[in-house]
């Protein structure tokens, strides 16, 4: 038997392995409040991909504090895609592991943010504190217990922190005053969870605290699940435009051979079907059609972007969340 015959046989075996419809498994490493959304989205995408290619896609989900999740991927968690709370956590995959290129944000529309959200307050309806809490100032009052996660591990917590900081800066006129203001708020924080879902548990299920600084969708979910008679959403006068970001983890998908389906998985987030699901789960859609459909569901408030207020994520992270930066200064001296 000649070598050519053997190679032909091997090629035939390989072809037989690849030509048939495949079962594909993806891992989506995401942040805390997207659990319910991606359960629905994964079904929609699997149906779409099955109809398009005949392949069966199963998407496994992993959720936790956004920063913690990014660290897990850098440490070896084999995520095909990351759908994290903020661009800086995705960029960490480039900075610390070279798992994706520096220009990852340019690969999908809207800087790879298929939806947006913002930060609001959740209070217990009818509680004495609820009557007092109307804006960020009220969170800094003595005796008010504030629930928010740890900015070192949670993307949502970083949005909370920066929203409070900008409010303080605008109201009191300087970064120094803003720092004092934010310090007063964190003095009122009795529990620092590692992620937003943990903080929801602390506030909603464990009954701790007077006010929860929350993702907008998480606040809506709490009211929907536990009743409008128990919780109410308070809209502050100013908040931040949160842009959760998504990216394919190039190094992993190339190794696993899942690049095509992983890219499609994220691209499909911009489809009308996905945008509608996004609105249903209380995230703010980016397509005009879905925006119009869900416009009434979202409160109108003054929103600023991180670029406007902090010069982008890289600077904000360095100034506030790096080791020894403002959060450490505030929290370690608490």
């Amino acid at each position, binding site marked *: *038997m000649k070598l050519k015959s053997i190679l032909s046989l*091997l090629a035939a075996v390989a072809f037989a392995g690849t030509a048939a419809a495949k079962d594909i498994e993806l891992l989506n490493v995401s942040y805390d409040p997207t659990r319910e959304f991606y359960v629905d989205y994964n079904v929609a995408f699997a149906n779409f991909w099955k109809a398009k290619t005949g392949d069966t896609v199963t998407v496994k989900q992993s959720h936790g504090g956004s920063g913690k999740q990014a660290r897990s991927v850098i440490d070896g*968690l084999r995520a095909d895609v990351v759908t994290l709370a903020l661009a800086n956590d995705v960029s960490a995959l480039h900075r610390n592991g070279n798992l994706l290129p520096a220009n990852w944000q340019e690969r999908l529309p809207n800087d790879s943010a298929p939806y947006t959200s913002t930060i609001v307050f959740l209070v217990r309806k009818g509680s004495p504190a609820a009557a007092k809490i109307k804006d960020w100032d009220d969170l800094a009052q003595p005796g008010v217990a504030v629930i928010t996660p740890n900015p070192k591990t949670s993307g949502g917590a970083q949005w909370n922190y920066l929203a409070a900081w900008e409010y303080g800066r605008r109201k009191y006129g300087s970064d120094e005053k803003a720092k004092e203001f934010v310090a007063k708020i964190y003095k009122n924080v009795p529990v620092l969870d590692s992620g937003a879902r943990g903080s929801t548990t602390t506030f909603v299920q464990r009954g701790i605290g007077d006010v929860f600084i929350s993702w907008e969708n998480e606040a809506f979910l709490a009211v929907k699940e536990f009743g409008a008679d128990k919780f109410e959403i308070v809209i502050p006068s100013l908040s931040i435009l949160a842009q959760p970001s998504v990216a394919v983890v190039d190094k992993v998908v190339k190794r696993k051979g899942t690049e095509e389906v992983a890219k499609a998985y994220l691209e499909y987030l911009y489809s009308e079907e996905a945008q509608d699901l996004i609105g249903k789960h209380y995230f703010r859609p980016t397509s005009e059609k879905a925006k119009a459909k869900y416009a009434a569901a979202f409160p109108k408030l003054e929103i600023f972007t991180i670029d406007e207020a902090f010069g982008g994520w890289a600077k904000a992270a360095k100034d506030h969340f790096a080791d020894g930066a403002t959060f450490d200064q505030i929290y370690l001296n608490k």
Partner: protein
Amino acid sequence: MRTIPRSLRVALATAIAATGFTATTFAQAASADDINALREQIRLLDQKLRVLERNQELKDETAVADAKKLPKITVSDGRIEVASSDGANSLRLRGLVQGDARFYLDDANAAQDQFLLRRARLAFEGKFAERFNYAVQPEFAGSTVSILDAFVNTSVFPALNVQVGRFKTPVGLEQLQSDPIAFFNERSIATNLAPNRDVGVQVFGPLADNRVTYQVAITNGVIDGGNSPTDSANSEGDFTYSGRLFATPFANEKDSALKGLGFGIGGAIGNYSGSASAPLVNAYRTDGQQNAFRYANNAAPTLANTTIANGTSYVISPQAYFYTGPLGILAEYFTTSSEVSIGSGATLNQQKLNNQAYNLSVGYVLTGEEAGFRGVTPKTNFNPTAGTWGAFEVVARLAWLDVDNDAFIVPAGAPVALAAANNATEVSSFGLGLNWYLSRSVRFGLNALNNDFKLAPSAAPAAGSVLADDEQVLIGRVQLSF
């Protein structure tokens, strides 16, 4: 008696009443404040308690998460495995020790009675980077330490796995079965014709929903039951190609009476060119591990006195097993063609020898455990105080090996035959045995085997040689395998 004037009495009563009213109102007001203060204190205490509990809960969650990141150490039935927390990397330590006692009941071999450390192996297995599996298995029994298996494999697709290194050539069914779980202490004489371990590349995997498995290998090449040395170059620049296709069509049907049926075919082909110092031919052994057939050889080897591989050799082996409940049957047949020669130039005696062999083995587990190609797992371990004795299995085997008569002829012009006439040209073997599984790891086996030899026509065995009598041997073995 003097009385208090009415006006004074009224004034006094009014004063007392007023005092009393004022005191009551004050008391009532103080009580409400206290209660509110107490309520607030209770609320604050309740919050403090909840905060303490939640912080403890978070600490516990962190501790559990941290514990999950620690490497896992598993010890079971002597086997030790260390794995990373995510299971992507692991090292498993396995071992095999076989202590044999051989007693030859025939006169010719009586002097060979012995105790023997048959195998002493440590196997290091595991995986790294999640998808690469490896195994390294040195053999410590014998006069030198040797490497038996050393390979790395990975799965490209479920149906396409690639293995590189030294491994068993995918041909013989019993040869591919792990040593410690074969029916008999020694494999059958048919396995003399199955290539053993070789160095090369193999692709393998399941097809048709695991109903069929295939193996295709390209290796340096080894014939007739031999092991290829790890440092061997392939002869003449030609590799040996081997393959095996094995079907278990009912394996997925749990209720089928045929779920334990498997059948297939294995084969190998290659070109070989031995030399006097490395003839690339092997002897055939009896059940008692004595040489029944050996090609011409010499302590001072030359092409004139040593038979060498010289041309194309192939082996084909149809094979099958059937396991149902405690019953197990394994059968295989070999037919080989080997071009070998002795002498050179005008005195060259080159023949294409066609050898054949079969093996039919049957086992029955008396204690009712399920038999299987991967061995028997006793329901209970040996523990006399608890009244449990492990599992017992009886085994029987019929095997046959036939060497081409052309090995013994001396063609016109050739000075010598390929093998001396006093070698066996046919060996018929029958054996009975008992296996006692004291636990999954410990087995005691006792085999009684008879080998009947036929020599070339009109040939007589050398006086006192192995073949002077039928070989009758008792082989006892204590085996630790984990």
